[in-house]
């Protein structure tokens, strides 16, 4: 399926959702659930809170589907809603990044066991990466967004996304090095 078709499908489903078509809403939920859930868990560092925000997000999709204009992808639009609700949920809460991991890294210890899978290595490294760097990597490589789509979601200029992604890669490779993992072994 080409990118254009995915975009069209998301648009069609959201338009049907705006007409209160339950089946279309369910389909839209099915094709976007994984991405939105991942985005929220990465942003909130709390699975329970992420699920609550996920419920709020899709409730908002049902209520506000009529406001979707199709200028961006449906996924970008729903993640924008999720992002705003996550910010609201985070207000007054501290980021749950593992201070222990940071301390270990600062002491030059290697929190990575030999048994750690590639996924676990990345998860650890991403936890240490700054939010803005982690977000841009996830939007482009996990969610498959273009620069303008990521820029729209992050509310920053496209050029900022372009430069940020290169700084993010540099930081991530540095973190691997600090964790005692050579980038080639990842």
């Amino acid at each position, binding site marked *: 399926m080409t*990118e254009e078709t995915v975009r069209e499908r998301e648009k069609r489903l959201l338009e049907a959702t705006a007409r*209160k078509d*339950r089946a279309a*809403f*369910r389909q839209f*939920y*099915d094709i976007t*659930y*994984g*991405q939105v*859930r*991942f985005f929220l868990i990465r942003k909130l560092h709390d699975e329970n809170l992420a*699920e609550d925000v*996920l*419920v*709020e997000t*899709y*409730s908002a999709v*049902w*209520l506000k589907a009529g406001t979707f204009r199709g200028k961006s992808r449906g996924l970008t639009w729903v993640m924008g809603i999720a992002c705003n609700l996550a910010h609201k949920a985070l207000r007054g809460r501290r980021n749950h990044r593992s201070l222990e991991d940071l301390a270990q890294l600062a002491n030059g210890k290697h929190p990575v066991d030999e048994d750690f*899978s*590639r*996924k676990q*290595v*990345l998860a650890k490294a991403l936890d240490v990466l700054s939010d803005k760097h982690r977000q841009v*990597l*996830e939007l*482009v*490589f*996990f969610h*498959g*967004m*273009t*620069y303008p789509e990521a820029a729209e979601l992050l509310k920053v200029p496209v050029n900022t996304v*372009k430069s940020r*992604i*290169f700084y993010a*890669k540099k930081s*991530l*490779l540095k973190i691997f090095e600090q964790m005692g993992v050579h*980038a*080639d072994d*990842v």
Partner: protein
Amino acid sequence: MMSERRKWRARIPLYLNGSLGDEQRHAFEKILEENPQLRREVEEFAKIHDLYADFQQQMPPPSERVFRRVEAAIRTQGQAPVAKPAAQPFRRLGKTLTGLFAAPRLSWALVAVQLVIIVVLVAGRGQTPVFRTLTSTPQAVHPAAAVQVVFQAHAAEAQIRKMLLAIGASIADGPTAEGLYTLRLADKTDIEQALQRLRQSPLVRFAGRVY
């Protein structure tokens, strides 16, 4: 040359995430063959991209439980994701009312009515307010020539008549349910003096001006 290199470099993530169109992808791959520095950078990004692919593969299927929570949340907000015919007339009525109030002609009419009310209220502020108390009567009695009186229960009609004649007063109105009489005083009678005499009389329980 520099901006050309920067342009291709910026396309690396898009090449890896499949966002480049066919034409751009072919052009990128051609440049890639000729540029080892760009190739090296693509390899670095590819590692990150592959790691994210691991996440993609382990993504859980859409949760039925979460969807049920979504449906419950929507129902709580009164917007059930299942069409409810019974709710349609109310929705239509709501839309009609919304449309009515959104109509510019009606909005201007409401503004005009509000302006008229404001003008009437502002204009009315200059007039003397009329206060009505227990002792005021519905009849128009000139205040300078009228007093109100409540006689004692034991006062006889003959005694009252004698007193009224003595001070030059006559009964203009009354009695009310509370036993209140309005007295009209003769033209040249001093109202304060008349009131004083009435108040000193053992026949009178209350005497006062008409306001």
